């Protein structure tokens, strides 16, 4: 059962495609980070997944085949949209009560205790709360719905570093407690490694990378070697991104799946391999929108080599 399955999914606004031929399967129980530059189609994908929007082409299903936006799906998928839209003129208590009245699945105890822990005054109007508190109220409502899939669109964007830390901590606590699946989009790449165990990178309306974070990290490395011998590395690796200086080149490279049996950890002569961090990996792919890393027998595109003049 995949929590999210998209096949050939596309969305066109007037003339421009916001999302195109998106085929994706996110396994359950993961915290999935959805990353990509502005306008890559992250919000579009999420809106399609919660039924706020209808696809131009293809299909998207959630929680093992439920039509996105159907009542069964709405009952089991909680969504916090970008900027956490809530009724700002309502006091927090009424806002929560309103959400309770709109849902069949509702854990009032959890909502009440969470708000108490966060010291959010129930009598204050939502619009008078800080951005961090508003995000927490929205998350509280989403979590009190006891969802099987929680979708968060840029939950960290309006938060300062401290609020961001607290938000992620409370999110991770819930994930650990309930074992729910989470899909969240983010610009903040540095936080990803701590919480995400599945990664989807969107670029220009297409899926560029999709995979388990551990596998992605194991399958990629940073190669450092002589700038003149980049071709040697190409025998074992696909080069995602190349940063070439006067004498040395830094490559973010992906081991070819076909090369696994023979590779056994060897790197070409004169080259040094070091593990890659998730941040480096994401940045490399974001810099090379032509490169892809997709599960299954998908071809790995070879990005153009970018020159870095020192």
């Amino acid at each position, binding site marked *: 059962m995949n929590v999210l399955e998209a096949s050939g999914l596309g969305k066109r606004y007037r003339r421009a495609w916001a999302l195109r031929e998106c085929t994706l399967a996110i396994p359950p129980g993961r915290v999935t980070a959805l990353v990509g530059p502005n306008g890559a189609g992250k919000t579009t994908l999420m809106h399609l997944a*919660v039924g*706020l929007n209808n696809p131009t082409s293809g299909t998207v299903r959630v929680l093992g085949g439920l039509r996105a936006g159907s009542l069964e799906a709405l009952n089991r998928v909680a969504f916090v*949209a970008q900027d956490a839209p809530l009724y*700002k003129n309502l006091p927090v208590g009424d806002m929560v*009560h309103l959400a309770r009245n709109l849902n*069949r*699945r509702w854990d*009032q105890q959890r909502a009440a205790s969470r708000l108490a822990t966060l010291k959010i005054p129930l009598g204050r109007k939502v619009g008078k709360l800080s951005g961090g508190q508003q995000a927490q109220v929205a998350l509280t409502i989403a979590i009190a719905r006891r969802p099987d899939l929680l979708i968060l669109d840029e939950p960290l964007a309006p938060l300062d570093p401290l609020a961001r830390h607290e938000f992620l901590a409370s999110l991770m606590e819930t994930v650990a407690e309930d074992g729910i699946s989470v899909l969240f989009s983010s610009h903040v790449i540095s936080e990803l490694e701590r919480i995400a165990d599945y990664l989807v990178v969107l670029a220009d309306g297409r899926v560029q990378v999709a995979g388990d974070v551990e596998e992605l990290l194991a399958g990629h490395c940073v190669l450092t070697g002589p700038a003149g011998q980049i071709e040697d590395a190409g025998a074992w690796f696909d080069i995602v991104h190349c940063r070439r200086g006067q004498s040395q080149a830094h490559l973010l490279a992906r081991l070819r799946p076909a090369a696994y049996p023979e590779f056994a950890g060897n790197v070409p002569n004169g080259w040094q391999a070091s593990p890659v961090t998730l941040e480096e990996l994401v940045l490399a792919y974001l810099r090379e929108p032509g490169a892809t890393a997709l599960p299954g027998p998908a071809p790995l595109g070879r990005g153009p080599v970018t020159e870095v003049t020192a």
Partner: protein
Amino acid sequence: MTALTPGAARSADGTRGGWFRPPQSLASLAWVTWRQHRAAIIGLAVLYGGLAVIMVWAALQGHANYTALIRDRCIGSTQLVRCGPLLGDFPWLMNTTYPIAVAMALHIVPLLTGMFLGAPVLAREFEQGTVRFAWTQGTSRTRWAVVQLTLLAIPVTAAAAALGALAAWSVRPFGPMWGVSLWRSGQFDATAVTLAGWTLFAFSLGTTVGVALRRTVPAMAVTAASLAGLLGVTYWKLNDLLLGSRPRIGRDPAIALQAGFPVSDSGPVRILDAMLNEGAGPMNPGPAGSLLLRGWYTGPDGHRLIGASADRLLSASQHTTSAGQWSSWLTRHHYAFWVSYQPPGRYWIFQSIEGGALLVLTLLLGAATIWLVRHRRA
């Protein structure tokens, strides 16, 4: 708030408790509707309540005064010494300002309802982005919209019907006294049936415009402008079409004369149709409670007077000084005055036609609103 008890095991994996509540009751969505729109509801209620209080006060005074006038036979009386103080007790009864003012004030009811309740309901959700919240909760957006809009539409329609009925009661003394007819355009659109119809229509027009424009202030402006236009067209044109009374003032000197306009000598008198478009009353002879459409004279031969013979009759009418004199003069000379009219029994049929048309339009707009809610992106 009631405490929630964890229910049966949730789903296939069965490892977690469920937090199901019984299927959503109407009451929970009713609470949502009330909580979100109570400011607008209370505002309108205060306004309409104020109108109602004024009308009740005027009606009580007016009815008491009218009864006294009948008792002392002061209606139409010129005996100022005996009737003057009684007439002075309630000066509103002395002219037709009050019924006209009431009809005008009631036209505000659909306008304000459409503007301040109908238009913002959905537009504000779009404008503030809260549709992204509302439409992703465990309630289908069709149900969310249908229940909310219905729950708002019912009370405002009922309130408008009550105001219409109250208005009819409060202007009743003016009918026999001044011939202020319920058929008149302003009054005709402000009865329990038509005012309710207009208010319901205005509300649904507001919601449709709101979901189409997705901006609160433009939606309010467009709603108000189109309602004002529609009410105006109905007042000036559609009612005449519906009731069969087409004003022809100005085209015909005879009609102009009948309506009290100066007649030029140069214009030929073609027909003697008098456009009355007025209820029967002391000024206009006709069956009580009917709408007089047209009047014309027939000569001794029983034919309608046209041309020169009509001219002669009108010249003769200049010598009479009162309606009674004129009437007996006509009879003596074997002339007759005829009227065509809508009998009072048709009043509620025409009311139902207007109300029914507004209801049909409301349903069409409602269907359009729901379609847009289902197909608009958030």
